[in-house]
């Protein structure tokens, strides 16, 4: 017996919404999905008319759907935004080069300008080269730190007012869990915020319009809209520990489908006890980027790479910051500890 759409009660339902369990027809699902993103944008006042917004595009499902929906909503509701695509080329052969092809196709389909910034031009290192020196363990640290800054630099080059990223509800919930497991109270407090407040110069505000969209619904949306996206895991990412949190979240979702939203609700309502030490935001004394230490992570990592001591930025070596700043050589003992890991 065909199930009727619970929204229009006319057409045949083609899917069961992972988020609410309702059966919907294709059109009603599209409408609901887009409308929800719109409500999120309006309720959180993410954009102002006339702003230029960079969409962080990786070619994956989240950013592809984000680009599609942003363009659609911008026209449907006259946001008055100028949209652009912004991509980072980490220099991973067999992964990013392929996904960037998808982004380039998206650019033509959506007729949006595209800017690609590469690690090579910004840092002089591609991820391929970094992995050659660092090994497969810990390389995600480099990639993650560099990408955060690369997006900002790209945004400044494009002169955009804001960046929006494709983080979905699953990502946010997973991060809440991760930060609890790591005991990272500062990030636990920040991670559910839908947009970053103006953090200082050289940092472009970011927001997550898909914050309340389930990953499964994003895939459903892309599937039924026949959107062109690239779905391969990065060849360098083992991501062991985060994998536990991810599996746990998926299991939770299967026990109670609202779990993802429940966790975000929890995260939004946490409050940190007074008197708990929080890292103070300052600026990097070398590059001027935001940093809670004398040197920003990206500069430390880069220094490590350039000195042939890749472990310099892995783990905590704040004591060495002074030495790096004053360009002093490290002692032999220190060097030995920071040499590449055998694998």
């Amino acid at each position, binding site marked *: 017996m065909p199930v009727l759409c*619970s*929204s*229009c009660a006319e057409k045949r339902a083609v899917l069961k919404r992972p988020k*609410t369990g*309702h059966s*919907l027809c294709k059109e009603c699902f599209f409408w*609901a999905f887009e*409308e929800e993103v*719109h*409500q999120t944008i309006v309720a*959180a006042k993410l954009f102002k008319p006339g702003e230029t917004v960079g969409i962080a595009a990786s070619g994956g499902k989240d950013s592809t759907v984000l680009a599609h929906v942003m363009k659609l909503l911008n026209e449907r509701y006259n946001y008055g935004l100028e949209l652009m695509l912004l991509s980072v080329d980490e220099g991973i052969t067999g992964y990013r080069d392929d996904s960037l092809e998808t982004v380039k196709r998206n650019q033509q389909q959506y007729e949006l300008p595209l800017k690609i910034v590469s690690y090579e031009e910004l840092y002089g290192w591609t991820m391929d080269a970094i992995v050659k020196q660092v090994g497969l363990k*810990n390389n995600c*640290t480099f*990639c*993650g730190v560099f990408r955060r800054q690369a997006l900002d630099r790209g945004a400044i080059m494009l002169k955009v007012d804001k960046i929006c990223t494709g*983080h979905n509800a699953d*990502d*946010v919930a997973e*991060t809440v*869990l991760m*930060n*609890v*497991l*790591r*005991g*990272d*109270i500062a*990030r*636990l407090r*920040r*991670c559910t915020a839908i947009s970053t407040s103006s953090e200082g110069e050289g940092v472009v505000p970011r927001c997550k319009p898909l914050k*309340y969209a389930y990953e499964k619904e994003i895939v459903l949306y892309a599937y039924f809209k026949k959107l062109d996206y690239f779905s391969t895991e990065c060849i360098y990412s083992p991501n*062991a*520990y*985060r994998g536990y949190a991810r599996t*746990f979240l998926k*299991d*939770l979702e*299967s*026990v*109670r489908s*609202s*779990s993802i*939203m*429940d*966790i*975000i*609700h*929890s*995260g*939004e*309502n*946490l*409050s*940190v*006890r*007074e008197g*708990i030490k929080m890292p103070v935001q300052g600026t990097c004394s070398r590059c001027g980027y935001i940093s809670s230490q004398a040197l920003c992570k990206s500069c430390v990592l880069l220094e490590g790479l350039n000195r042939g001591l890749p472990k310099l930025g*892995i*783990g905590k070596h704040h004591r060495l910051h002074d030495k790096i700043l004053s360009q002093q050589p490290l002692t032999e003992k220190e060097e030995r500890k920071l040499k590449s890991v055998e694998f």
Partner: protein
Amino acid sequence: MCQVEEDYRDELESVDVPSISKKCVKCKEASAAVVIRAGDAYCRVCFKEYFIHKFRAMLGKNRLIFPGEKVLLAVSGGPSSCSMLNQVKEGLSQNAHKKLRFRPGIIYIDEGGAVGQSVEERRRTVAELQGVFRATGFLFYVVPLEQVLNLPSSVVASAPAPPEHLSSAYKAAVDRFIQSDGSSCLTPQDKGQTSLPEVHESQTQVLQQLIASAKTLTAKQDLLNTLRQHLLVHTARTEGYSKLMLGDNCTRLAVKLLTSISLGRGAQLAQDTGFSDSRYGDIISVRPMRDYSAKEIAYYNHLFNVPSVFIPSLDTKTADKASVQRLTESFVIKLQADFPSTVSTIYRTGEKLQTARLSSSTADHCDRCLLCMCALDTAVEEASALQATLISEQLSQTTSPGATRTTTPRPNRAPVEPESSAPTGQCCSSGGQEHCGRAESGGGCCSSAKGPEMTNLRSLLCYSCQLTIKDMSSVEHLPQYILSEARRRQRRSQMREEISEFLLDGVDEGV
């Protein structure tokens, strides 16, 4: 996502090779008997000293339990609460180094009826526990969970404000205690127990119906926790205790913290897992076992023959994915096996949190959840997970034909508002009360009013308790004290609505 250091291995996975040296790390003389953590090998004597000191230190540091105060120990029969009982007994004994100075009593809640144990099984368990309790010489109460059906609604009504705790008050209490020579309270006044209330089979059935009305094990467990808590608080109140001691250990609390987050109880985390919990006002719960890991307790109980009794619970012998609570437990335990600092890291995260939104002094009792008695966390901003979920539900349901598409569906800002409380209120409160609670399945007035009653109830609940109620087939099986308090609150808020234009800002009589 936003964080980048993905290399947790080094930090969290410390290699735990037990130190080969067989000497105790403390006295460095006796040979080690237990390894608590990697590298920490203790001999029997030093381990006992360490364990006992930890208990006294926890109580001493927090200074919440006054000398001479009556404290009710909630003992479930499990290793943790039995160990707590053992510590209290140890601390009160004449030869204790730093004597504890409060007056203990024990309470055991027999949940056999909810779990589905036979009368015979329940009797056997109770008998076994009574043996343990008698050996302590403390006063004890064995209360069947069925009694929760007869609670007065004062349990979930406005809780009296907690007494002010000042350090001067503590000192004064100490002085008073010393003057009165303190001996009177240490001798167990009236040994034994209050008479064991008979459980009627019909009551067990009502209780079972209530538990069965929760469709998921997650909701069943949550409901059972709530009922147990109410019964504990009520017994403490009627028997004149002002503190309730719970046996939650560090491992348990880490699981509880992650469970709470997964169930949407972020705002209540600090109360759910902190040392003290004052949500019931006059009765304060404390968790003195929170610094012990389950492993330490197991070692101690084993080495020093602390008896405990195995009692099955709702999730005994269920699969990992049977409920959110069960899944979280197995996740934490498994992760702990690979990364030995998991439990302590989660636990320490909890230490850094506090109860949200409690700072506003206007948080009167109407703003507390009907079930868990925590401050409501449902008055959220427009951009929030709760609003997003409501919008999703609204957009996925039939809208009146015609009025669609072109107009942007505005989210009904507060579906949590009592929209149609009138019909239910009238029907049920007008004398039909017993009839309502007693589940005359499909009985006229209530079954028709079931829908609105359910939605009305939601407005009185916190986010997480709403989820539990959502998982229930009907709310008519809820105990009478909850339903009548719900109706009372609804009437109050209706009244408030009517006279709202004459009320001045800031003047809030609350209850």
